[in-house]
């Protein structure tokens, strides 16, 4: 399962973002931010408490099952009266949730979280960024490990000089992707893949912002 990995903004920053807006409605998400303990029911209630302590008026709160889903519109509609009493929505979902809510409502939205990356669950509570959707997948030549994402520098032709006994120069807690790739390819007897020169990458496969319209009918027929 992929998850949106978030962390809470410091309260001081949240208060600064809210500024003069006194009446606040709080929204959390029952999926990724619940799992990460950054924006589930418990965190929404804790935020409510903190805001009240600083003199804000919390007009209501809501934990949407999957905030990034289009069903969110219904959940929002049911809570419209309380929201209308508010000057802003303080949102404890990831940025996908914030933008989903923003599409359906025309209220000032204030994110209470920072979205770090879209991660894959590697072990209990351990998430790693494994793909940044680059548009030119190289996994077939790198033992199924993505250097674009997992190498700090996104290098395509092997390790830099900072590789340190299997760890990356930026952090001893992070693996050097190129050591992992090397070990995997070696095990598979495919080191020749690593010897292949990778020419300069196309960073404009899908120029930002990505936008695609699938022809649903044809694929369905």
């Amino acid at each position: 399962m992929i998850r949106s990995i978030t962390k809470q903004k410091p309260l001081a920053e949240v208060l600064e973002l809210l500024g003069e807006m006194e009446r606040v409605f709080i929204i959390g998400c029952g999926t990724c931010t619940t799992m990460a303990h950054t924006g589930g029911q418990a965190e929404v209630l804790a935020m409510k408490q903190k805001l009240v302590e600083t003199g804000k008026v919390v007009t209501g709160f809501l934990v949407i099952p999957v905030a990034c889903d289009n069903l969110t519109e219904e959940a929002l509609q049911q809570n419209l009266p309380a929201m209308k009493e508010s000057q802003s929505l303080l949102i404890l979902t990831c940025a996908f949730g914030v933008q989903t809510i923003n599409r359906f409502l025309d209220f000032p939205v204030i994110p209470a979280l920072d979205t770090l990356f879209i991660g894959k669950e590697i072990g209990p509570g351990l998430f790693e960024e494994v793909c940044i959707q680059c548009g030119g997948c190289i996994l077939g030549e790198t033992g199924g490990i993505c250097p674009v994402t997992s190498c700090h520098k996104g290098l395509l032709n092997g390790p830099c000089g900072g590789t340190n006994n299997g760890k990356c120069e930026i952090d001893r807690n992070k693996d050097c992707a190129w050591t992992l790739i090397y070990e995997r390819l070696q095990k598979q007897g495919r080191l020749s893949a690593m010897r292949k020169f990778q020419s300069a990458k196309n960073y404009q496969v899908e120029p930002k912002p990505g936008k695609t319209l699938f022809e649903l009918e044809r694929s369905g027929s």
Partner: protein
Amino acid sequence: MARVLREVLRSGEFVVTSEIGPPKGSDVSKMSHHIEMLKDKVHALNVTDNQSSVMRYPSLGGAILIKERGGEPILQMTCRDRNRLALQGDLLFAYSRGIRNVLCLTGDAVPVGDHKTAKSVFDLDSTQLLRAIRTLESGKDMGGNTIEGKVEFCAGAIVTPEARPLEPQLMKFEKKVDCGAEFFQTQAIYDMDNFRRFMEYAGRFPVKILAGIVLLTSAKMAKYMTENVPGIFVPQTLIDELAQAPKGQALKKGIEIAARMVRAIKEEGLCAGVHIMAIGREEVVPEILQAAGIGFNGHKASDAGT
């Protein structure tokens, strides 16, 4: 005027290069002093490019200063701060200003430096930058467009003989050779047996290897380097040697160790030459050279005392 590096590399002479770290700021007086002091004592001088991801006066500016003073510059270029447009443009500019040598590096990571929130570029890596140079020389840019005027560089790269694991590093070394690297400066080496083993391998390739000699200034620094700097191994015997130096004499001991290594590499003919890095202590490089028996203009002063 200094001879061009490619000629020196091909001459079979023992090659000696060193390195200049540009200032943090626009005052180039100290750097100019170091250039004056070293330009006639070594075959070529590298200028580092925002080394350790610390923002400084640019390597291109330093290389031009060396050129203007009659020295032979090696322009260090990392891929951290510029995309392929900027890198190619800087190569054209460098060539137009008489710079003929480029050392292609990936570059250290942004978070280790002094602008920790900057965006890292790494549009190219060191192998792709080497390939870009050879492409420009063919009269085309990386976009396939024709360029006006000639471009020609003696291109080099770096290799880390003490990298762990070593094999991926060697595979990248071979890619750099294939992409057109003519010479290599190694990461600092201190263990001669390990370096001999590395040269048994690297000696098979049609490239010139310059052994990286980084001045040790204290036992503490040596210990720090071996424990913390990736790809550097300082044998305990050297750390002990520095620790046993009389108080205030550690730097002198470091100079002696560096000189001893240069001399040993030269006498054994282990590789094409040495690249001496006295990070922040450029003024002691002449002492290292003298103690190693390397005379002016890279010629051997005399055999006395060897």
